[in-house]
């Protein structure tokens, strides 16, 4: 079942760049990474999905409903954490939970307390007295307290310490295993690599690629270092699928294109002294997309 579906979604506003022809399909129960550099249009896309902005062209549906016309119904089953989270300064964590509970017509206190214990959050403090990280934790608790079908998190780990990031990842993973869908906007490559099942990369408002992480890993090159046994072997012509970056003495280092097996077969019978093959280098691949090397 598709939880978020956009088709040719375009939104331009003012002087800011929006999104152009965005097509997304977010399956139920997935942790979906929405990646892109700052200003790529991630937040604009989220705002269209939540009904804050009207699409200029195309369609956007969440939980099978039109985002602009049926936003209220959609938001019943959505938990949202804005990228630049601001909360009412006069509220305490507890009064914020109670207020959102009253708006939603639910008692959020039991689950909210459980979440705040997990994130080590003191609910009795006023928002105005909270640090940025603490406010972020409260924002997460408020977004997750009603156990929504869809969690939309816009750069949620900003200002969270590594331990809290880990707890959040664990919680999101558990939610996804239980059927919750997480739409996770980020510009942190390693975070998306650790957490997400699928990833969409946007650049300058356009979708660059949309794949499962497993497919991306297959596409990503491996970093290879070869040390030849003798000086003579250094003269060997490298295969086309190995991009050599360094050639110092008896050592080659470079990026492997395609499967490792092919390279291992190529090495067969050659005089190697040492060989190391690193894990798939997603970061390089992401940078390649970020900087305009990928298909658009």
């Amino acid at each position, binding site marked *: 079942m598709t939880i978020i579906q956009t088709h040719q979604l375009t939104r331009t506003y003012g002087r800011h760049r929006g999104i152009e022809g965005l097509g997304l399909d977010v399956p139920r129960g997935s942790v979906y990474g929405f990646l892109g550099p700052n200003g790529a249009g991630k937040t604009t896309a989220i705002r269209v999905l939540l009904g*804050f902005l009207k699409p200029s062209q195309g369609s956007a549906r969440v939980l099978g409903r039109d985002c602009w016309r049926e936003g209220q119904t959609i*938001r019943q089953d959505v938990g*949202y954490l*804005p990228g630049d989270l601001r909360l009412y300064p006069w509220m305490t964590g507890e009064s914020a939970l109670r207020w959102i509970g*009253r*708006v*939603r017509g639910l008692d959020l206190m039991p689950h909210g307390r459980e979440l705040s214990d997990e994130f080590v959050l003191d609910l009795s403090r006023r928002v105005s007295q909270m640090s940025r990280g603490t406010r972020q934790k409260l924002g997460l608790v408020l977004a997750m307290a009603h156990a929504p079908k869809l969690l939309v998190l816009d750069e949620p780990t900003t200002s969270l310490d590594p331990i809290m990031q880990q707890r959040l990842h664990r919680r999101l993973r558990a939610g996804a295993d239980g059927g919750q869908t997480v739409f996770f906007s980020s510009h942190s490559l390693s975070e998306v690599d650790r957490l997400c099942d699928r990833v969409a990369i946007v650049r300058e408002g356009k979708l660059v690629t949309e794949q499962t992480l497993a497919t991306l890993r297959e596409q990503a090159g491996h970093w290879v270092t070869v040390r030849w046994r003798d000086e003579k072997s250094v003269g060997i012509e490298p295969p086309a699928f190995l991009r050599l970056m360094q050639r110092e003495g008896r050592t080659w280092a470079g990026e492997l294109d395609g499967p490792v097996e092919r390279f291992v077969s190529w090495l067969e019978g050659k005089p190697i002294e040492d060989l190391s093959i690193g894990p798939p280098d997603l970061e390089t691949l992401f940078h390649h997309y970020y900087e305009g090397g990928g298909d658009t």
Partner: protein
Amino acid sequence: MNHGLVGKSIRELWPATVMCGLLAAVFEGLVAFILPRFQAQMGAQILEMEFVRRVIEGMLGTRIADQLGPEIIRSIPWAHPIMLALVLAHAVICCTRMPAGEVDRGTIDIALGLPISRWQWMWTDTVVWIGSALIVIVMAVIGNAVGSSIVSKDRVMGLHQAGMIFANLLGLYLAVGAGAWLISSLGNRRGKVITTVFVLIVASFLVSYLEQFWEPARYAGWFSALSYYRPAEVLRSGQWPVRDLCVLYGASTVLWGCAAAVFIRRDLCTT
């Protein structure tokens, strides 16, 4: 109406409501208590000065004779700039909170992320706003009654007179508030919205005063708030100001309707 939204609106509005209401009550009480003592002196000396007489006429929105009668004296606390400033400040504070205040503060993303429709939000905030307006004006009426009763029981306005003043002042309050709401719906910065509303209010009152001295200003008389809020005329005639009430409540309804239409259709998010 959404109970959560009602609670939030009340929480945000009560400090301004209590403050403006108390100040209006104290001011009304003091002026109603003090002014009658100077009635004879004002009639004899101040009105002899043409300029001062015209300023007072501009303030009251009506011509005054050589004598300041009890109705004119009774109407001064209601038309005094301080009283109007207090009441209209409350209207501006309330009506610029949403959406300009929410966008400016950055809380609009959290509020709009909840399962509430914009219409629901607009409607709920309007009910709380009108409720708080009634509190402020009722407090002013009570303050006036207390101040007048100290001077003499006869000076306290009857229910009919108080009702007319109340309805006229509420009409002015709602028209200014609805105008502020419309500007707020169009804006993203509360400071700019408040400045715009303030400039318009000052211009509107300025027209009333200029009309007394400068003939061309009469062409802009329709823009003067004091052309439709005339407590002196109301108290003197004892007649309900039907035309004024129709204009004020009609303008309020139209402006509020436009504000709602803009708010429901526009893009909203933290900028």
